[in-house]
């Protein structure tokens, strides 16, 4: 059992969950992920690491509430236990002395790109961080980013903060840099990673993405996480999750992520009133 230390909604629909898992916290590196279950009988879902505290033995995740399991995780209270937190899984993001690196985070990637930016900064890279969202009220951790970035940019679709629009503004941002970027690293939703890769391709800048196919075990046993990289099948959980975005078969990844789209709707169709009523009775006793 793993104890929930805190759980807060940092911006609408994104929750910062901190759990105690000392063995994992002792080992985890930027770009790795864990698999977690919200309850017995629950599904196993992967979450990227957003931060950790080795001394306290804790891990923090940024979770977007999109379905059955993330919804359960969102409702966890401090002090409760969850049955599974296993990791660190996958390979860590390569943190080299690259020169200038652009880190891009959107959606839950606003969480998970943070330790990457921090580690790059510690390696004396020039770190340009871009975080993007639909609107300013969905941006978080700006203070944390300012501390580890040489340049910090926000993009909002509605222009309520920073650049108005999409990651399509990337060329302007790259053009405004004093020297060309040596590498781009993107975390977040599949579309953001795909678009960034398409935009960066003509610039010839190596672009690293953190793929998020469906997973079960996260140890290379089931093969559900297979992705095509330069026309070769790889298991994202053990060969990745980081890959060269210019080599990813994005259409296949997007299609495979939709496998259970119909079934996923089932847990969301109920209002869960009965469950809540039962919980309430439990509290009174």
């Amino acid at each position, binding site marked *: 059992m793993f104890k929930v230390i805190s759980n807060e909604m940092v911006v609408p629909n994104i929750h910062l969950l901190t759990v105690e898992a000392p*063995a*994992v916290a002792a*080992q985890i590196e930027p770009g790795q992920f864990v698999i977690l*279950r919200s309850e017995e*009988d*629950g*599904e*196993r879902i992967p979450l990227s690491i957003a931060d950790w505290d080795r001394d306290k033995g804790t891990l923090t995740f940024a979770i977007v509430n999109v379905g*059955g*399991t993330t919804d359960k995780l969102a409702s966890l209270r401090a002090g409760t236990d969850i*049955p*599974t*937190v*296993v*990791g*660190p*899984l996958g390979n860590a993001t390569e943190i080299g002395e690259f020169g200038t690196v652009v880190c891009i985070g959107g959606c839950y990637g606003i969480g998970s790109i943070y330790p990457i930016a921090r580690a790059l900064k510690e390696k004396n890279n020039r770190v340009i961080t871009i975080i993007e969202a639909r609107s300013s009220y969905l941006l978080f951790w700006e203070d944390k980013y300012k501390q580890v970035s040489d340049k910090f940019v926000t993009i909002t679709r509605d222009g309520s903060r920073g650049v108005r629009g999409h990651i399509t503004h990337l060329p302007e941002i790259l053009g405004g840099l004093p020297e060309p970027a040596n590498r781009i690293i993107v975390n977040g939703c599949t579309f953001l990673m795909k678009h960034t890769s398409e935009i960066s391709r003509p610039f010839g800048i190596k672009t690293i993405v953190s793929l998020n196919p469906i997973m*079960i*075990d996260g*140890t*290379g*046993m*089931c*093969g*559900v996480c*297979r*992705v*095509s990289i330069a026309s070769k*099948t790889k298991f994202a959980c*053990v060969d990745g999750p980081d890959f060269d975005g210019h080599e990813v078969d994005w*259409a*296949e990844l997007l*299609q*495979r992520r*939709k*496998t*259970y789209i119909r*079934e*996923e709707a*089932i*847990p969301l169709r109920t209002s869960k009133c009965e469950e809540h009523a039962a919980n309430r009775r439990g509290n009174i006793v």
Partner: protein
Amino acid sequence: MSEPVKRKIDYNRREMPKQLPQVRSHNFYEVALGYPPETAIEEAQRCLQCKKAGCVEKCPVEINIPGFVRCIAEGDFAKGIKILKEKNCLPAVCGRVCPQEEQCESACIMLKKGGQSAIGRLERFLADWEAAQGKLELPEIPKPTGKKVAVVGGGPAGLTVAGDLIKLGHKVTIFEALHKLGGVLIYGIPEFRLPKAIVYREVEYLRMLGVEVVTDFVVGKTRSVENLLREFDAIFIGAGAGLPWFMNIPGENLNGVYSANEYLTRMNLMKGFMFPQYQTPIKEHAKVAVVGGGNVAMDCARTALRLGAETRIIYRRSRQELPARLEEVENAEEEGVIFDFLTLPIRYIGDENGWVKEIEYLKMQLGEPDASGRRSPVPIEGSETILPVDAVVCAIGNSPNPLIPTSTKGLQIGKKGNIVADEATGKTSMEKVWAGGDVVTGAATVILAMGAGRKAARSMHEFLCSG
């Protein structure tokens, strides 16, 4: 003890009752129902109590077969289970899934007339009898030796090592990557062949003996083997052969194409057949094709059938070469699995949404025997055929997961990605590290994994006591 009475040999092997095919093909309850006590006694009485019992030699863990069978014949079940457990810590499992026809029963002196003793069924009977008594007898544990052993992987190999070493007074911790112990017994073999309650019971027994269990712990990731060696005096690696093979043919990454591991894990470990009560989804498919011909393929096919799909096995050789146990093939046939022999998929074709909708396959004919001694399949030119399906399960084999081999320096690795270990002792190229089971041999059987665990435990014990 009385001398066995001279009597006419009874070649009538007693049948074990089963659920009727038309009933069981719609449920996930166990197919075989086990002997009632009277039948078990009758069956046991047939055994000739051979002095030089061939059956014992063919059992990888050398169970005293005439010994326990005689106890059943005499109605002393309590003593029978004791004899059985001296050598086998998982009798309820082995009695169900051991390929007995190739092992103990193949050497029974009564085999000639097809009347070989039903050793597996009797073993199962005793184990189930004990469970029904509701009280387990715990062996006495000697005083602690002060030595600490780490077991990596909670499959049959690891469970055997843990059981053997705890009984010798060592402190044992099992590290398991998944959230439950049992390995393939829990995530692979379906409920209708091996009820999970039986596996839980065996695991619980080990806990009661004092084995410490750490689940959700991936050795090589959460901690490396080297790191564990700082804390433990010896390590056994029983990580199994979990890496699924694909055929590398076009269309294999379409939606609806599963590895057997994924399909079975969703069903067994994650209880997908109880979705949405259990939260891991599975699809309702109408036409499922399972590629392969081993036990794993049979399990996938019979699972798909129970979920209501028209199910077929696509196998490139003929019925005779099927590597699966005959009993399982017959069960599958009775339940209504369709067998397409001499067919080899060459391509999967998807619909506009990326879902598999057809298999293109070649018809085969049998040529000369190959290295395995089986006649090898040769494609018939121009025999391309299209078969409409909405799911494919690829059950063509597994090899050892590379996680531990690649993360452990100094561990000698074989050509197939397996850990190299001495056959007699399980010793690896690394000091204080032993290995056994599928991770060494490649995908094999439960009882061979247990046999390897037993040998390793013996060697580890010698080592621990010498130092």
